[in-house]
């Protein structure tokens, strides 16, 4: 066999691919499901926390900052392992899917809170003053005047961060979540061939590349807003 043939046989073996493609496809669904759930919950939670911080209740803000700091400073895998291995011994039993979802959501929420809060504080004070001068209450000013502007500022960094975190769904492999990588490594050890891994890599790239390109477009579109 020539070099090329051997390469193709190792990474693009048609027979192996055909056999394991369905399993990997299932993994794709799991990854998609997880990603959507994480992005929706994470950003919603982060946004809510950022809004709470706007009320400047000392103790509350303090707790939010502590939460955001801890979940941004710790490696996701560390948190996942602590929760996954620790909770059962403490009497709480959660599926690996739930553990992965919960941890990644909290991490995204922590980053989202900081990003959206930075957006809120970037909105010029004059906007608050103008809104309050017309009789709008604090919450009304926050919701109708400040937040829309803050979110626009937050979209580029938020998209980037969301992509980075959803690619971490691959970590689910370590605790047995049947995602793409898990299916691929299993298939690889059964077949003794690297094609499933190649397919997994391709699947991930196909899945996430559109979003990476989208975020690139969003950055250029919102760039003019940066003063």
């Amino acid at each position, binding site marked *: 066999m020539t070099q090329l043939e051997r390469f193709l046989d190792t990474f693009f073996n048609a027979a192996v691919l055909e056999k394991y493609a369905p399993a990997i496809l299932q993994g794709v669904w799991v990854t998609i499901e997880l990603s959507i759930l994480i992005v929706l919950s994470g950003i919603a939670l982060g946004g809510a926390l950022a809004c709470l911080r706007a009320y400047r209740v000392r103790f509350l803000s303090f707790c939010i900052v502590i939460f955001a700091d801890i979940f941004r400073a710790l490696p996701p895998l560390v948190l996942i392992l602590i929760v996954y291995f620790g909770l059962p011994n403490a009497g709480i039993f959660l599926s690996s899917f739930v553990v992965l979802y919960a941890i990644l959501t909290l991490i995204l929420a922590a980053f989202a809170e900081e990003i959206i809060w930075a957006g809120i504080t970037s909105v010029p004070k004059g906007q608050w*003053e*103008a809104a309050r001068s017309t009789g*709008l209450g604090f919450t009304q000013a926050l919701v109708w005047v400040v937040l829309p502007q803050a979110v626009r500022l937050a979209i580029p960094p938020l998209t980037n961060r969301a992509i980075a975190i959803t690619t971490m769904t691959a970590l689910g492999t370590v605790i047995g979540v049947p995602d793409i990588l898990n299916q691929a490594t299993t298939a690889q050890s059964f077949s003794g061939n690297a094609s499933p891994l190649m397919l997994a890599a391709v699947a991930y790239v196909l899945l996430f590349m559109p979003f990476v390109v989208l975020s690139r477009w969003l950055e250029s579109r919102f760039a003019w807003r940066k003063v």
Partner: protein
Amino acid sequence: MTEPRAAELAAAPVAPAKGRRLPALEVAALHKSYGDTQVLSGINLKVAPSELVFVLGPSGSGKSTMLRCCNRLEEPDSGEILLKGTRVTGPGVNLNQIRQRIGMVFQAFNLYPHLSALKNVALALRKVRGMSRAEAEARAIEALTQVGLADKAGNHPSALSGGQQQRVAIARALALEPEVMLFDEPTSALDPELVGDVLAVMRDMKSAGMTMLVVSHEMKFAQEAADRVIFMDGGHIIEQGPPEQIFGSPSHERTQAFLSRVTGG
């Protein structure tokens, strides 16, 4: 607030002094400091209904601070602000309600960039007055017509010139039908050729009988339109009187010095 003054106000919160009309806006014994700097040292001012009071002074004189205390964008350390006899300062005041009765126009316009001119004006009407969308937008169009910009209702602030933005800002304040309008250097951020349009709107408001308190450098406008001119410096009101008196024959040395500096002396 000193004890005698507090007792006075508690005894007669809304009773006007005998024989006089209730002032539209009253500033009483206003004090404010930032850290060690005393910005306002006992300001007393009464603005009569439909009066246009023009406030002059060097930067740091406290004129903007005084204006911003009137709708409590700044909190005075002591003293009182009264709107037609109703207290603006002090605890237990429904600030959001009071603010509907006081209109504020800012140097930086502060239009909401994510909303069209129409929605800028209609927002408070919908959220604070609880008007339906149709009612609010109708009233907003009226206000925009008053400032001559009904045709720009659908435009966003970024598509408007500075002068147009400021006029929309005025419409936004007018839409709530306030009793008093406060102007914080309304034309200072505008290119010279756009200033005229804004001043024209302000002149119209004066003719319509609006009570106005204006902090500005537009001397010509003061000479033509103001009922009273006040000169402030170092947190005090140094001198006040009709424009002819202040511009023509100011009595205080500081007033004279300021005027000669400013009018290209």
